[in-house]
């Protein structure tokens, strides 16, 4: 240790003090069989800013929840300040000086900032909240850590940036020494991000330790002392930030994808089916989620969108399918405008949609399989006869779909909830493929389903495209995008960073650089290829 003054933050301390948090050989298997962590070793040194990066589904959040006591590891050990701990709940973790700020804030919207901060540890007198004291304490802690808040504002009325500061203060008020921030910048504007970073630096100056999850490599370089990269449930490596380059991190994050073999005949590109022009979207909080996105999709091709989740793909799909209004721009299907139309109007323009989250909007679980199969067509012939729905036709159609798409069920009148995940997805695929679409928008079509169903869905997608349907494929599974797509566009922070007309010859590392915003094609070059 250098003589005099406080030791430099970060990895140098490793040699003299045990890490403040150490995880050894952590395995986590969820009850549904998902293995989120596979033998992770992870350590954080006191007084450092430690960045944890990786794509969605890499197991970052699970790992942090284990530290925070929200999840119990299936195997492995947790040490805090050198002592092994078994947290039964986040309460235990809080008592051990660990605080966590989640992606979705957990504040009481109708309470004031001060009330939220002291909630659970309120200064009271005769069982009543001492309001003045709560406000004073809030002001004091807010000044101490340089996190500006208005103690008397109602949480419902304050912006996202301030809500986040309230969450951080709440953790600090409970005596947190170690602060875990789960994707803190995902909801912030660039200015707010800068404010957050300076607050984090201030916290560390005052002896706190900060772990933050992100998948923005720029932020890693900007604020962290050390960085750990996770991929597919494993910690790939930890290194001092100054030794890391964005390229090396990107390589660690994306890794080498195992491409599956998909038999697909060469694409015969037909006429232009969809045309998207200068599409922009600013969300409710003022964040620019999509910025001047333009592209075309042609009959008989699969256009894949490659990008880390959260870079505008979800919103793009929702806008193109009528579930979300756009801020500006245009989108045409066969020359007919589809922007800011209702989902029914979009569907009538021969667009079908496999949604990203089948349980949220792809299916009605308690309704029968048959009824789930007709949501886009119950109102027209042959399903509607006169004033009523012809349930004989519905049942026949159901039986036929069950057979054709191999949905494993004894009876189409059973609720969808009785099916396995893969079979649920087949119900969606059956519905969306049998509506005779000219444009098929498939978002995460194989997420969370078993190998057999995955293969089936992929084959069906390729077959549709070979039959002349235009397909827009959005997937967080880079291997899937690369092996299915004929053409790929990379997106980063709501902008297209690259267009690759020949998906097959593209290297995943090269693509990763575009997905993480490290490289960008010049506009003129892209224009030709879009």
């Amino acid at each position, binding site marked *: 240790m250098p003589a005099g003054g406080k030791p430099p933050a970060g990895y140098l301390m490793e040699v003299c003090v045990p890490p403040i948090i150490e995880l050894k050989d952590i395995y986590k298997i969820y009850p549904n069989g998902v293995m989120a962590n596979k033998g992770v070793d992870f350590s954080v040194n006191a007084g450092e800013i430690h960045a944890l990066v990786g794509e969605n589904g890499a197991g970052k959040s699970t790992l942090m929840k284990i530290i925070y006591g929200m999840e119990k590891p299936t195997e492995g050990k947790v040490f805090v300040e050198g002592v092994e701990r078994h947290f039964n709940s986040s309460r235990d973790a809080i008592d051990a000086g660990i605080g966590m700020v989640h992606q979705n804030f957990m504040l009481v919207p109708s309470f004031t900032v001060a009330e939220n901060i002291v909630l659970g540890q309120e200064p009271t007198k005769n069982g009543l909240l001492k309001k003045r004291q709560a406000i004073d304490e809030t002001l004091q802690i807010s000044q101490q850590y340089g996190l500006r808040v208005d103690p008397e504002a109602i949480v419902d009325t304050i912006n996202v940036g301030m809500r986040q500061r309230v969450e951080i203060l709440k953790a600090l008020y409970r005596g947190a020494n170690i602060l875990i921030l789960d994707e803190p910048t995902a909801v912030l504007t660039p200015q707010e991000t800068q404010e957050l970073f300076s607050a984090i630096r201030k916290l560390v100056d005052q002896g706190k330790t900060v772990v933050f999850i992100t998948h923005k490599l720029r932020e890693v370089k900007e604020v962290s002392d050390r960085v750990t990269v996770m991929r597919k449930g494993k910690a790939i490596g930890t290194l001092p930030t100054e030794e890391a380059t964005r390229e090396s991190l990107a390589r660690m994050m994306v890794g080498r994808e195992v491409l599956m073999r998909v038999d697909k005949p060469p694409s015969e590109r037909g006429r232009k089916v969809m045309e998207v022009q200068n599409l922009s979207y600013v969300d409710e909080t003022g964040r620019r989620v999509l910025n001047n996105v333009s592209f075309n999709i042609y009959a008989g091709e699969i256009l894949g969108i490659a990008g880390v989740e959260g870079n505008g793909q979800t919103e793009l799909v929702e806008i193109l399918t009528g579930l979300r209004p756009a801020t500006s721009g245009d989108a045409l299907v066969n020359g007919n405008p589809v922007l800011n139309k209702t989902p029914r109007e979009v569907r009538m323009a021969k667009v079908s949609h496999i949604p990203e989250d089948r349980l949220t909007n792809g299916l009605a679980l308690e309704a029968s399989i048959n009824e789930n199969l007709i949501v886009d067509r119950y109102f027209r012939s042959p399903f509607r006869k006169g004033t009523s729905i012809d349930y004989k036709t519905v049942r026949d159609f159901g039986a036929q779909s069950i057979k054709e798409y191999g949905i*494993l069920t004894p009876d189409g009148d059973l609720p969808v909830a009785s099916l396995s995940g893969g079979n649920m997805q087949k119900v969606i695929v059956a519905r969306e493929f049998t509506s005779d679409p000219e444009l098929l928008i498939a978002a995460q079509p194989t997420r969370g389903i078993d190998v057999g169903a995955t293969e089936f869905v992929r084959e069906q997608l390729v077959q549709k495209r070979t039959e002349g349907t235009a397909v827009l494929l959005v997937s967080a599974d880079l291997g899937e995008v690369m092996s299915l797509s004929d053409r790929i566009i990379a997106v980063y922070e709501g902008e297209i960073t690259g267009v690759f007309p020949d998906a097959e010859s593209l290297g995943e590392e090269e693509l990763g650089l575009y997905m993480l915003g490290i490289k960008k094609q010049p506009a003129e070059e892209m224009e030709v290829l879009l």
Partner: protein
Amino acid sequence: MIRKLYMKPFVREFLRILLAITISLGLGFIITLLVSDDPVGAYQAFLTGPLTRINRTGEWIKETITLTLLGLSVALVFKANLFSLGQEGQMLLGALVSGSISLFVPLPAILRIPLALIAAMVVGYLFGALPGYLKAHLNANEIVSTLMLNAIALRLYDYFLIFHIKPEGAGYNASDFFPKEGILPTFIPNVPFLAEAYELFSRRANITIMLYIAIAVVILTWYVMYRTPYGYELRMLGANSKFASYGGINTKKTIVLAFAVSGIVSGLAGAHLGMGIHEKLIANITIGIAFEGIVVALLARNNPIAVPFAALAYGYLRAGADIMERTSDVSREMVLVIQAIIILLVTAERVLPIIQQRVNAARANNNLSMNSEKPALEEGG
């Protein structure tokens, strides 16, 4: 064989309710033991009261008709996973409009009665559409808005009753009795070979043709809910509103219609209060029954076909409680406690956790054998 029968949801549900009723009646008796000097007599009055005299049976059936209509009205909203407390206001206005037509429109019965009923349904539809519109387009909380609209309807009803309908100089807040042309006829047609029954019922237990109308409404509601595109939209909205909008259903329109169609049925229930039960308009005409449709719908699990049976059972309970109160030393309060226990046990989702668990286990077994490829792991997605 028995096991197979037990697997049928209907049989299971029936057994569940039977057991819940048995347990709650037992609890009810224990309470009666504690508060009554003649517990057996009091409880007997409660259990058999509605069947002891024909007029008591008549009261029970008439109440059942109102409860059936209200239960259907609530089920229509509940099915869409919405909530409405607006039946009171819709009934009041339905009673007011149909009552005014019965009293003042000089048409023969054959025209006057249908006109009055249709008017009650129209006003119920319109008044029901209001909270639906507020909910769909302004995102107003439907519990608050329906309650507030009830208050408005109540004042309107009182205003018209007191200042325009009640006879001048009368010292009570009620209209004149409706003329014969404005009262629903007895459910037994006045034909020679049924003369005796007609006489008996019209004198002692005046059950009206609303009985047939209610049965028709039950069937119609079932048909609308399970066989029409509108019913499909309603049920999909209730099952998963995000799925409904994703699939292209106009959810706003569906919400407005859910409330409005529910209002039609409540309006009809209001007409029944005036033209079938009281035969005049009185103050507080809906008191004690306004919110009972919710219990009926809960008991029937929003299934229109089950609604009249739930209404019969619940109506019986109400009638029995009434008779116990009048004929024994058990106070009204205790009667209500017993009634509430029964409802609580029957409607509570997890009343009988043991049975529930066994049912779930059986269901899971079923699923396992069904999804032989990759069971447990994928269960539930």
